[in-house]
């Protein structure tokens, strides 16, 4: 029988916390940028300017067809070259975090844009007509009438996507960046306690994601109850 | 045929049925009516065990429905049921809707089951639609198929749970005609319905329910002629003004 030995975890907690901060940083950045860029993409897809709609659709479909691992590999390849070219960084500068941030943000924007597009489409067309009848421009109608309603309906889906994203940040492992998972793996590898560290990491992810998804579920119920009345 | 004795049912603290008792003898047609939420649909679903009940007893052809040892699927295969929303199986053709339970439950051969189904389909006047799917028929047609589907099992009695209340007014009669014909042939029937014309024409007795209780259980002449309870009088007055 395998003999568990959890003793390497307490001493490693500060290091693991540093990793968790990286995971959370990537998540927060990708969520904020992803929603902003995703909103623009969604509006472009729904726009009546055909080339713009087509470009946005191609962007979204391309990113949604490629594995996240491949996207990250692409960005670990391209971003350093671009940064070095633009900012004349020397070759030793560590730009892995920057690459991961850019990769995740652009990738998640494709997924967010689909959620947001559905949200915008769920707002009845009459709302735009009503706003126009009041003399609002299209942009005003979007910003003041449609988007606020759309976002209220979308909040649970956006949050659920953020939970998925948080789990996906572990994939920066492919660039040897020490996020929470990478940190746990390093400690386990160093101490020959990979089994314990992997189980610990899994448990931590589970507690965070389960709690978050339960909170989203409660919020969704409240929202539904609110709409029903 | 059907005997309901002191049946009570509650969901948590909410009492749905209180001490309900009535009988349906062989060849009788009983109409159950009452305002919505009076428990009449729940009561009829207790008869074939689709709804469990906490106390009292129901027997169908001498077999106890509430007894955990009773083979409910077997009992249900002998009791036909027609639902408010037809509940044909949308992914099967009309022919398959009519034959699937004969084959899978009664163990009949495919040809025998198909023949039987087509005969009954003809009887409800829909033979031309055998190869269509439920979604391609009108509500009234679907409900007639649903009646044929139940009859294909050679039931010893039939339960109707508001069979016309989901139908457009112009389709109600085609379904009621089938039900009247069935009653005149001597089928034992328990019908939850608001169709008082149907009740006057073929019912032996009327059971009037309110707030989970059976308030009146009388032959139709006394029920329509001189209802004993104030609640039944109000109910009848309301139905007439509709």
């Amino acid at each position: 029988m395998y003999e568990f030995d959890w003793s390497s975890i307490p001493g490693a907690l500060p290091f693991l916390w540093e990793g968790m901060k990286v995971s959370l940083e990537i998540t927060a950045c990708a969520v904020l940028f992803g929603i902003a860029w995703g909103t623009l993409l969604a509006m472009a897809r729904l726009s009546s300017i055909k080339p713009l709609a087509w470009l946005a659709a191609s962007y979204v479909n391309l990113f949604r067809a490629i594995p996240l691992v491949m996207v990250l590999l692409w960005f670990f390849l391209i971003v350093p070259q671009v940064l070095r070219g633009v900012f004349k960084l020397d070759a030793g500068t560590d730009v892995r975090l920057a690459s991961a941030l850019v990769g995740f943000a652009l990738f998640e924007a494709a997924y967010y844009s689909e959620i947001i597009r559905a949200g915008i489409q769920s707002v009845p067309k009459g709302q735009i007509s009503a706003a126009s009848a009041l003399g609002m421009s299209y942009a005003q109608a979007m910003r003041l009438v449609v988007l606020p309603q759309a976002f209220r309906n979308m909040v649970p889906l956006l949050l659920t996507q953020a939970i998925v994203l948080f789990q996906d940040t572990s994939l920066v492992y492919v660039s040897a960046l020490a996020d929470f998972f990478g940190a746990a793996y390093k400690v386990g590898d160093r101490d020959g306690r990979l089994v314990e560290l992997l189980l610990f990491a899994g448990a931590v992810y589970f507690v965070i994601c389960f709690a978050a998804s339960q909170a989203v579920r409660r919020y969704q119920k409240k929202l539904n109850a609110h709409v029903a009345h | 045929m059907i005997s309901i004795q002191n049946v009570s049912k509650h969901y948590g603290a909410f009492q749905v049925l209180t001490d309900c008792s009535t009988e349906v003898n062989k060849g009788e047609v009983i109409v159950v009516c009452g305002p919505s939420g009076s428990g009449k649909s729940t009561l009829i679903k207790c008869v074939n065990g689709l709804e469990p009940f906490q106390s009292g007893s129901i027997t169908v052809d001498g077999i106890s429905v509430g007894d955990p040892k009773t083979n409910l699927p077997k009992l249900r295969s002998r009791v036909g049921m027609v639902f408010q929303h037809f509940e044909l199986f949308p992914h099967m053709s009309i022919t398959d809707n009519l034959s699937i339970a004969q084959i899978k439950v009664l163990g009949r051969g495919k040809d025998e089951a198909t023949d039987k189904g087509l005969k009954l389909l003809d009887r409800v006047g829909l033979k031309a639609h055998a190869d269509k799917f439920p979604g391609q028929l009108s509500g009234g047609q679907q409900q007639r198929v649903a009646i044929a589907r139940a009859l294909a099992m050679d039931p010893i009695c039939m339960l109707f749970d508001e069979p016309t209340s989901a139908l457009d007014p112009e389709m109600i009669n085609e379904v009621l005609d089938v039900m009247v014909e069935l009653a005149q042939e001597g089928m034992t029937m328990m019908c939850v319905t608001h169709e008082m014309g149907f009740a006057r024409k073929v019912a032996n007795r009327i059971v009037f329910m309110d707030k989970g209780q059976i308030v009146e259980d009388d032959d139709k002449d006394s029920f329509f002629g001189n209802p004993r309870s104030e609640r039944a009088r109000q109910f009848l007055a309301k139905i007439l003004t509709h």
Partner: protein
Amino acid sequence: MGYQWNWSIFGSTVPTGETTYLAWLLSGLQVTVELSLAAWLLALALGSLVGVLRTVPNKALSGLAAAYVEIFRNTPLLVQLFSWYFVLPEILPFGLGDAFKQQLAPLTQQFLAAMLCLAFFTSARVAEQVRAGIGALPRGQKAAGLALGFTLPQTYRHVLLPMAFRLIVPPLTSEFLNIFKNSAVCSTIGLLELAAQGRQLVDYTAQPYESFIAVTLFYLLINVIVMALMRIVEARTRVPGYLGGK
């Protein structure tokens, strides 16, 4: 940027001289496809079972199924993969783990762990879709099946599941696509699937763009083929007079 494009690398032979770089990529593609298809079949079977259990009128069974779904949905795919590959063989009792480590070829170990990981990970998502599909059916359908004398399993088999699966073809299509994309994660345990072969090519040829472009195109190709296949499935299972049917 001064990058030297060289598309001829795909035709050139690998250092061991036995084959070409293109053949490496193709063998990676083959592993990706085999792995994903095997895992998908397992995920469909497991997910259908768990999804059905979530809807049965038995608190213990539906609770167990719910716990299953939560566990596999709330831990990262990478953690699950490493657990199948590094953790499970260590803690399996009765010498099963040792048998896994010692008697199976390393390639088989990687493939098995990857397949089980993708299958269980995806099954939880399939289960949620199956449950949603069953939940979307009119409540009277189950009653109608039972009233005809079907047992509960027969009611699921003949009445509920055929319709539920038709309703969830679109979300299942996206899960099917996801399993191909997620299989790229399995390069992290050394399985030489498509993404891993792509990285290996970069290491050997120092021509990263050609290699990544080729791998990306292969993933796009898989995507197109799967979507076309599922569109056929959707058309074949369409019910006349219902939803998109006619």
